[in-house]
């Protein structure tokens, strides 16, 4: 990796100010960033370390961006009020990475696309060159089945779809300024140089994730399919939260991971369920709706099949 200046930030506003330095990047635990540095995929002149920032007294609805995945997985309140988040955090990565990796880093992590992660390979998102996965003979097996444009990558975070299904919002900080966005709005379409697919302004950081417990959030689920239980990313993940009233779906949110360049809110699935009883028929219809817009690439058609089946399983779990 290229040598860099190392700055340790005391607070989010201070970190944000430090990031005004050109060619600087924030680092939380570095479990993702370090690999990119070693491969020289990113070569920042300075790293601003967030990991020593003193965390504010925690409020149950406010998750610090610096919370580790292990902390989220072990939190009793999360387990009770946000089972989807509990499940996503518990299954992600490996025990070692969960012990270090942070929520903020997880949401801003970079796609696992092998072309992106290899300096010198052709990749639209890294430098605007043609997408290596979409070029003839390219490897696209683990890539997106929705919303493929100039980039075909699959978003790697499993926490993001869970949080989107839970209706989470993110609090961003830039200098002394703060703003709050729905989590799905944090993500932007692939663009050259924007490796993490997040629509952050220069120097802007994710400070916290905001959640509200509700009957819907308590009736939530996260399921994923991966090839290997140890040490792997999901090939498809589905998170759903449903509030039932008098046997009918009063409100519902469904989101998927690893199927599109961004975590994908599944509005077609939500529409197929809203107002209907949650039964085998509506679930089958909703799962069919999930793949209507899917446009698999040469070798990842199986992801659409898996998505369909995971949707059925996820919704079945919420029938009560």
């Amino acid at each position: 990796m290229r040598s860099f200046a190392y700055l340790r930030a005391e607070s989010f506003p201070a970190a944000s100010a430090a990031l005004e330095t050109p060619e600087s990047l924030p680092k939380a635990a570095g479990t993702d960033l370090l690999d990119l540095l070693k491969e020289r995929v990113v070569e920042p002149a300075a790293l601003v370390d967030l990991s020593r920032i003193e965390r504010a007294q925690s409020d149950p609805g406010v998750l610090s961006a610096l919370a580790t995945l292990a902390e989220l997985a072990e939190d009793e309140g999360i387990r009770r009020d946000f089972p989807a988040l509990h499940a996503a955090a518990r299954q992600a990565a490996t025990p070692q990475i969960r012990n270090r990796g942070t929520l903020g880093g997880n949401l801003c992590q970079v796609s696992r696309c092998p072309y992106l992660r290899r300096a010198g390979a052709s990749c639209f998102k890294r430098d605007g060159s043609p997408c290596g996965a979409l070029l003839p003979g390219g490897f696209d097996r683990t890539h997106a089945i929705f919303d493929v444009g100039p980039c075909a990558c699959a978003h790697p975070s499993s926490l993001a779809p869970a949080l989107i299904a839970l209706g989470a919002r993110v609090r961003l900080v830039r200098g002394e300024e703060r703003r709050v966005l729905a989590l799905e709005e944090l993500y932007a379409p692939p663009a050259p140089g924007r490796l993490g697919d997040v629509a952050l302004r220069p120097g802007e950081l994710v400070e916290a994730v905001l959640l509200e417990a509700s009957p819907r959030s308590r009736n939530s689920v996260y399921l994923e399919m991966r090839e290997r239980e140890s040490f792997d990313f999901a090939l498809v993940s589905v998170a759903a939260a449903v509030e039932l009233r008098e046997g009918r779906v009063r409100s519902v949110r469904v989101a998927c991971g690893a199927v599109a360049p961004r975590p994908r809110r599944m509005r077609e699935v939500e529409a197929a369920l809203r107002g209907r009883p949650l039964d085998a028929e509506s679930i089958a219809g909703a799962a069919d709706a999930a793949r209507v817009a899917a446009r698999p690439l040469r070798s990842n058609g199986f992801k659409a099949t898996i998505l369909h089946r995971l949707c059925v399983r996820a919704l079945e779990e919420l029938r009560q």
Partner: protein
Amino acid sequence: MSQRTLELGFSGHSEERRVEVPPDAPPPWDLRSDLKVAGKPHPRLEARLKVTGAARYTADQRLPGMIFAGAVRSPHAHARVRRLDLSRAKKLPGVLYSEAYPQREVRYAGQAVAALAAESEQVLDDALALVEVDYEVLPHVVRTEDALAEDAPAVAGRRNVRQGRGMRRGSLRRVEEAHARADVVLTREYRTQVQTHTCLEPHGSVARWEGDRLTVWASTQATFAFRQTLARALGISAAQVEVITEHMGGGFGSKFGADAWDVFAARAARATGRPCFFMLDRRAEHLVAGNRPDSIQRCTFSVRRDGKLLGAQVTSHGTAGLGRGAGVLNPAIYAFEATYSDQYDVLTHAGSARAFRAPRHPQGVFALEGMLDELAEAIGMDPLELRRKNDPHPVRQAQYDVGAEAIGWSRRKPSGSSPGPLKRGLGVAAARWAHNARPGTAVRCRIGRDGSVLVANGSQDIGTGTRTILAQIVAEELGLPLAAVEVRLGRTRDPYGHGSGGSVTAPSIAPPARRAAYACRQRLLAAVAAALGCEAESLSLREGRVHGAERELSFAAACGLLPTESIEATATGGPEDMSYPSFTREVAGVQFAEVEVDAELGTVRVVKVVAVQDCGLVANPLLARSQINGGVLQGISYALHEERILDARTGDMLNANLLDYKILGAREVPEIVAIPFSVANGRTSTGMSSLGEPPTVPTAGAVANAVANAIGARVRSLPITPEKVLAAIAEAERTRRASDGEKKKKKKKRIF
């Protein structure tokens, strides 16, 4: 010569054999031998060092003043190097040595074009990035199938498809005659992938010169071959080089000599006068350090309705990259009437293959065992029954019983009959290996007047437990507890030992170790007899004591009677005590697998594997199980996960790391019932058989058969990934629906 009658075989199936034992050799161990230390479950001697991290591997060496080396590697599979400029790199402070390899063409991604050595790893990394290479990219081909095409770029010479000597075997005419007599003839295509060795400790070494003497710490499975190849490359005599391999972090066949990077390290160390460290990084490990070739096997097999196997015909194509040796072995486990195999190497622009744990076997057995199950299904016979009917080997016949009992074979349901999305299935596969004891290994045993016992051999323990086995053999022969014997391994100044390949190490090193200990024992007893004034024949060594007719004394006291400071004997394994007429020359193994397939998502979980493995006489049940476990795990990993993925467009490897190149992890480990199966084959004086490789041979076949049993559809391609499982299920459903449609039509016709 003395005559001995041995009882050979295994429990329930033994026979007596008379052998001639040379006067200076101990009589071979057999079923009647009452062993006290050998054959017992002693934990490996260095276990504590390894689990506490105290064991120092080559990659752990940090010598004073040590410098670090690395290479610039081509990202292109085929290119001409137009310009190679090291000047900027060399100007970087801390860069101490460099070499440029201005070969006209690079022929695989990963090939080195330059190498550097620098003060620190950081300087090295920066310097490597400063080397400027201008490549003219040339046409390449990296996939076996693409290389077969008429218009494929030629990799070397004119033709990409080659057939080496011995790659056509058997008689096509006889096989065709056999097929003609069959009730069922099936033709199927089986495929396997390229697997990389993925040694946890990478390849490499640390070199240090003192005057004109070179010491090299090497991660090698052949200390002596390493010394030889390195000395030759440096133009010095092997006597100037000492190779040290105290602990080894995995080789699997890819570490049999000094490689280009080792030679560079030695040259850089000589030029700078400082020790030089050169271990490959993970990417280079995958690209340049060897692999198991892939295969496309077209199989036509035939069987009679009563289960008699008739013909087996296999045509295979595979790539060993730029190297050779991509043939598969569909070994003669079963007694076909006629066999024919026709095998081709397909050259591609990719790193060369190297020997990999049971080269050619797992891929061949995967196809063979799959075909057997398909034939069994076609004639409506239980797959185990079909094997029993056609397997001439008495050991495997017994192993089928043991394994079937342990896995609960009677639970096996007809293929595809498991209800619900989670489907269970059972599968079986067999393996065959040769009893590979090679003469030529020398072992020195020394007993000191202070009662110390040292055994020394210069070859390596690659994790197979050689050190522990040596101590056990010598302790047994001297009637001592294990702890009384010190073993020194992995230094080429000690006596010669073979490279650890072909599973030769334990079977080859144990007989000379025993014989050296035997010689020391005779001399010790002679010295004691002289001191006590009795006959040596009246003395024996047991339980750490010398027992005579009238008195006994401790081993240490006996050693105190030695006339010299120590006695020493070096024995070299030779035909005298390594090629007795044996019960069997073959090493037999059988494995059973139980899997659970999520038929909706396509994921496969191996639930249980029963591995019954002929070990010859079991040297140490713990070590034997450890070898079997390792073989099974590597086999499952091969069956379900591992695959080298090369980008067709650039020829670069896309998963040259440990996340995307998937080896099985802790959560994928099933229940493994490793059953070391003891067979007194009588071949050598110690009776140990080859065990390193055979346990990985049948695993993928057994797992694949279990998957087919679970889902009622067959995946004929490794690794068995979710999409292949889903596609096989969908295909089977289509076929079933089509044939149901046919039946309905027929029924309707009848009604009409």
